[in-house]
């Protein structure tokens, strides 16, 4: 049939809502980092207020998904709905982490700046594309792109450890900057968690489009390696 069935329309409504939620989450992270870097108190405040919107989206997506599940969908429809619920949860947590970053940004904007802030933007510039990449893979039905994202999480973890060491060092040498350093540690931690959530989304996208569960295998990039095993007929 050329036109959509009612069920297909409901599925595409679900997808749309999820993508709207995703764009809110991405914007929240971007704004929180900008507020941090530019020491923008008002922007930070706005991010915190917007988090309520993201929370409501999670509830709505879950409700739509449950109602759709009652209709006993199968195969790719079933995977889509299950994955939608998981992605919405990950996005909600991303929103919470963005909120935390914005809280630290607010605090830091009241304190005098310190020199080491330069690494945080670099970490943000690695994290944000991960999130965007995972969501783009979802929209573009591109599991290969999703697989490419997963190894980047390791880099973020290493960067986080580096920043910790640098900040710890700085704190011991300049005790008057302890407040700022502790706040920056929290920010780094939040960014690392956002990268984790982006990785989760990427794994869910692979499950959706390849019907293969690659969580907790650590190897995502190449099919043929133990994490990306032989293709299954349902893929």
């Amino acid at each position: 049939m050329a036109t959509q069935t009612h069920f297909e329309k409901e599925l595409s409504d679900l997808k749309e809502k999820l993508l709207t939620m995703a764009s809110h989450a991405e914007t929240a992270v971007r704004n929180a980092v900008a507020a941090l870097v530019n020491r923008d108190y008002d922007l930070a405040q706005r991010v915190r207020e917007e988090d309520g919107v993201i929370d409501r989206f999670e509830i709505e997506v879950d409700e739509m998904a449950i109602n759709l599940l009652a209709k006993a969908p199968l195969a790719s429809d079933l995977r889509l709905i299950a994955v939608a619920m998981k992605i919405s949860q990950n996005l909600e947590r991303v929103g919470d982490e963005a909120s935390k970053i914005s809280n630290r940004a607010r605090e830091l904007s009241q304190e005098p700046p310190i020199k080491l802030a330069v690494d945080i933007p670099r970490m943000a510039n690695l994290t944000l594309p991960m999130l965007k990449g995972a969501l783009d893979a979802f929209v573009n039905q591109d599991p290969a792109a999703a697989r490419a994202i997963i190894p980047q999480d390791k880099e973020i973890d290493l960067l986080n450890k580096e920043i910790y060491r640098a900040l710890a060092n700085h704190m011991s040498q300049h005790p008057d900057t302890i407040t700022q350093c502790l706040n920056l540690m929290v920010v780094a931690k939040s960014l690392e968690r956002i990268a984790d959530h982006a990785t989760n989304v990427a794994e869910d996208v692979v499950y959706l489009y390849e019907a293969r569960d690659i969580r907790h295998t650590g190897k995502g990039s190449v099919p043929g390696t133990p994490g990306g095993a032989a293709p299954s007929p349902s893929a």
Partner: protein
Amino acid sequence: MAEIPLQKVSLRAPGANKGPAAAALIDVQGLSLFYGANQALRNISFSIGEKVVTAFIGPSGCGKSTLLRCFNRMNDLIDNVRIEGTVRIAAQDINSPEVDVIELRKRVGMVFQKSNPFPKTIYENVAYGLRLQGVTRKAELDAIIEESLRQAALWDEVKDRLNTSGLGLSGGQQQRLCIARAIAIRPEIILMDEPASALDPLATARVEELILELKKDFTIVIVTHNMQQAARISDYTAFFYLGQLIEYGPTNAIFTHPSNKQTEDYVTGRFG
């Protein structure tokens, strides 16, 4: 018999919106039905609003088909049937002696479990109800028949063979033909008694999609054994057991969190 307050009153209750609480199109109060000494329906009370799809679910023999047939008084055809309580359609008691049952059946149509097209041409099948109402001009008949077949998602498949027998169609097509035949006379309410139970999954899906489209113009009550079907197409669901109405509410509530344990057991397949 005196005609027919039912004809003069519009079956569209004014200001009705979707919901059992709003101005109800079908209102059942204290309905009990007896086949001789056997009680098939026990004190049923609920109401159905306009232009929604309501599903009746329940195990075999729970009375859902019997209740459905009360709405167009098809139970009159059976001997020894006794009714207590009232069934009101558009605020009219349909069992009162002033109501002309023929007029009632023109406003409340029915589609049966086993498709039953007449052994006539496709055209004549759909025209049957129209001719009963005195529509004879060919142009008018042609227009209504085409529209009904389109609404029943059958037009494209049969438009070149309207003069062949209705019995030459496949099972799913025959059922859609019966639906077209029923909607041709523009009833306000359509009753469907397990319309897809004899069809394969593809034909079933087409009939379900059809019902979702018809919802815009008709109030539909459907009896079904298939709970996923009820979840897919209905707005409200009523669960019956042994002649009683156990639970009635919005479909997504009944299927995701029913209030009654019996409903939960039936819906999850733990009994019945």
